[in-house]
């Protein structure tokens, strides 16, 4: 009798997972590919000295991206991480400059970041504004405040800042120099980043907080009806994010020993990219910290490798965009769209 090929639109469980696996490995493949490419083409790339450089240079971005994870996991987005970043830096540097000790300055800096998060929560939870718009507004307002405080946006230099604070970004855990000029400089900021990432990983994957955030991100209404205090936990996510990003800002200002207004913007897009690359590496597509870190490292390696290959700085953006695009295309071409929700009709 007439017979046709089996044509499947909706896949049953096993095949879908296969698609996911392929997508994940595909992404990893590209990342490794880039890594090896640089290892081969740029001789100085694959040295411990250089790699530790990459790590320290990526640590600030890592912290921002990790902070962002909390908000994205709960289904939102936070464009104002740039502002939390800057406010942390601004408060700390200004306080230091006026003579305050490093500890109080840091604590108040963290509080400032948390405040930004609180503002975001208010807008999203109470005023019920979409996170994209709400944090966009915060971004505007925050950057404007920075310009007002610095009367135009000029950086605030403070090379004489407290040594303890300087240590945040410039201090090294250990330095090892060998005779032939290799220098491994394992900066303290890497440790901070690792600690923050570990804490965030724990929170997101092992605690009630993490479970609630994922539930809110998966299906807010159902989560609410299951007794998850949605409003409260959404607020937690934003506040945590603001806090963490302000820490990143402080480290950044420590590296430069100055507060440069609007420097947070630079990290915004990369952080978003890293978080999403991270979610593509997860079996079910959840936002996750390890994946995000891979994303962060990827950006770091890319920038570093391009530099070492002698490729002009301007090519960085081009390559960055191109490679992300390639990963995305690969991922989509192989894997099934797992962001797609229920089929409209019940099975059989």
């Amino acid at each position, binding site marked *: 009798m007439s017979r046709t090929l089996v044509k499947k639109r909706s896949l*049953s469980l096993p095949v879908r997972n296969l698609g996911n696996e392929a997508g994940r490995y595909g992404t990893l493949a590209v990342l490794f590919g880039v890594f090896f490419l640089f290892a081969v083409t740029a001789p100085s790339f694959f040295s411990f000295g250089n790699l530790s450089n990459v790590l320290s240079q990526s640590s600030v971005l890592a912290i921002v991206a990790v902070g962002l994870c909390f908000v994205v996991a709960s289904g939102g987005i936070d464009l104002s991480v740039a502002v939390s970043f800057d406010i942390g830096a601004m408060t700390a540097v200004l306080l230091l400059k006026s003579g305050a000790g490093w500890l109080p300055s840091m604590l108040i800096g963290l509080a400032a970041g948390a405040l930004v998060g609180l503002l975001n929560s208010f807008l999203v939870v109470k005023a019920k504004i979409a996170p994209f718009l709400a944090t966009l507004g915060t971004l505007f307002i925050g950057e404007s405040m920075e310009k007002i405080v610095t009367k135009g946006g000029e950086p605030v230099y403070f090379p004489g800042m407290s040594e303890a604070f300087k240590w945040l970004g410039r201090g090294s855990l250990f330095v090892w120099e060998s005779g032939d000029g290799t220098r491994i400089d394992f900066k303290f900021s890497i440790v901070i980043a690792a600690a923050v990432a570990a804490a965030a990983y724990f929170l997101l994957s092992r605690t009630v907080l993490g479970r609630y955030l994922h539930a809110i991100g998966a299906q807010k209404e*159902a989560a609410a009806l299951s007794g998850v205090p949605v409003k409260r936990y959404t607020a937690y996510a934003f506040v945590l994010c603001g806090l963490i990003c302000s820490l990143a800002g402080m480290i950044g200002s420590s590296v430069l020993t100055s507060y440069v207004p609007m420097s947070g913007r630079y990290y915004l897009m990369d952080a978003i990219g890293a978080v999403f690359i991270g979610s593509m590496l997860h079996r079910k597509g959840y936002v996750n910290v390890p994946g995000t870190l891979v994303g962060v490292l990827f950006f770091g390696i890319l920038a570093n490798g391009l530099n070492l290959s002698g490729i002009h700085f301007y090519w960085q953006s081009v390559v960055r965009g191109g490679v992300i695009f390639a990963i995305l295309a690969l991922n989509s071409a192989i894997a099934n769209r797992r962001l797609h929700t229920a089929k409209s009709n019940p099975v059989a």
Partner: protein
Amino acid sequence: MRSEYVLEMLKIDKEFPGVKALQQVTFQLRKGEIHGLVGENGAGKSTLMKILAGIYSPDRGEIRFEGQVQNRLTPRLVAQKGIHFIHQERHVVPYLTVAETLFLGIEPAFSPFKFINRKALVKEAEAHLRKTVGLDIPGDKPVGELTVGEQQLLQVCRALYHRPKVIVFDEPTAVLASKEADRLFEIIRELRRQNIGIIYISHYLNEIVQLCDRITVFRNGTKVDTLETKGLDIERIVYLMVGREIGEQFPVKKRTAGEPLLRVEGLTHIDQFRNIRFQVRSGEIVGVTGLMGSGHTRLGQSIYDGSGLTGGVLELNGRVLKRIRSDKAVSSGMGYVPEDRRNRGILQSMSVRENISLASLKNISRAGVVRPSAERRKVDELIERLDIRAPGREAVVNDLSGGNQQKVVLARWLSSGAKLYILNQPTAAVDVGAKAEIYSLIGSLIEQGAGVLLISQDLQELVRLSDRILVMYRGEIVQELEGDGITVEQVMVAMMGGNENGTSGQRAANGMESAVSDQI
């Protein structure tokens, strides 16, 4: 020789990895007949329809349309041939107007850049709607403002625009009030008069018996039988579907009730209900029902999370609740099974384990940290107890059948130790087998001292399970029926406002009578 059948699906086989969805299934549809398809979820009727729709291809077998063999059906081809589907989910864009929705994709214009003559479109839409389905609504109204029944009629009208030869209705009345359902039946009968072949899929066996000329029963991927509906009773159909007697479904009613778990007084909602007063005691099932618009479905959720409430007192376990919120409800021992299971009951992309433990994380965690082994133990226990059929506790809940998904939701509340359960249409679109399991689960909950508020429009279910039934009409409780002798007719009459609307109540009651008198 011209076939008497407009559609034939002969000896269809269909397999998915690990599942034989259809085995040697033969189905034939005559011109101008209403043919019902019944069977549990998973029995194969949806798969057969998906093959008909061109979404799947059969592994083996032949499909003939008007006597001609069809190869390689695609959705587009199927529509061209004149086979149209009215789906369960009404996919609509809320802010498009009626006219725009009616003609979406088939706008009377040639190239996509042609301008729409709004006024003409609206006029034509209104005329068409009036003529084909007797619907009289302004053509420029946003579709989101129509009632569910009206939206469905819009869909039917759209299908009729193409002069179909076959129309497939998939669970159309699950969301309709009985007046709207009656109207739909009229239209379907009219379609039959026009010699259109109609396939009618439904779990509402009384409707099937009323409406259809013949039915085909599916079980486990095979066709059990095709019968004339004349003289057929529901018991026989269920027996064919399940292989069991219907009587076995319902648990024996428990008589003794204990302390009041929930007490509600003067509860008022902004627009759905007012002055609601009742109580639910431990060990009893209180049923609530009413027509669409009576407020009974809203009642359940509002008691649980306070949405829309403007006044009244809620007492739980003897203590008045100051703030009514879902998380407070959960910690006070309430559990809510929502009507819209897919979007508000389960968290689709999460696993069975995560779904079940969501409301009881406090119990399996220490200082905010979840203890995986404790969670696993608890979840496995519940999966076993409720016989949740899934490929393991990590399975994505979305992939389970409706009945199993519902069990997951119930498991969540069992896990959180809820004592008061508010169930909103718990067995809607759940197959007969799973229904029975859910009923016995409710029975065991009661035995352990829980109280259940059962909101349902399935009157059989309501009458069989409930100790008391509260009937709501236009936002108020108009009658409370108690005792063993409650009949479905009594409930129906109360639902329609007692002696007002006497005729429609009587007609409907008569319709139900023949189908269910044996049960009661």
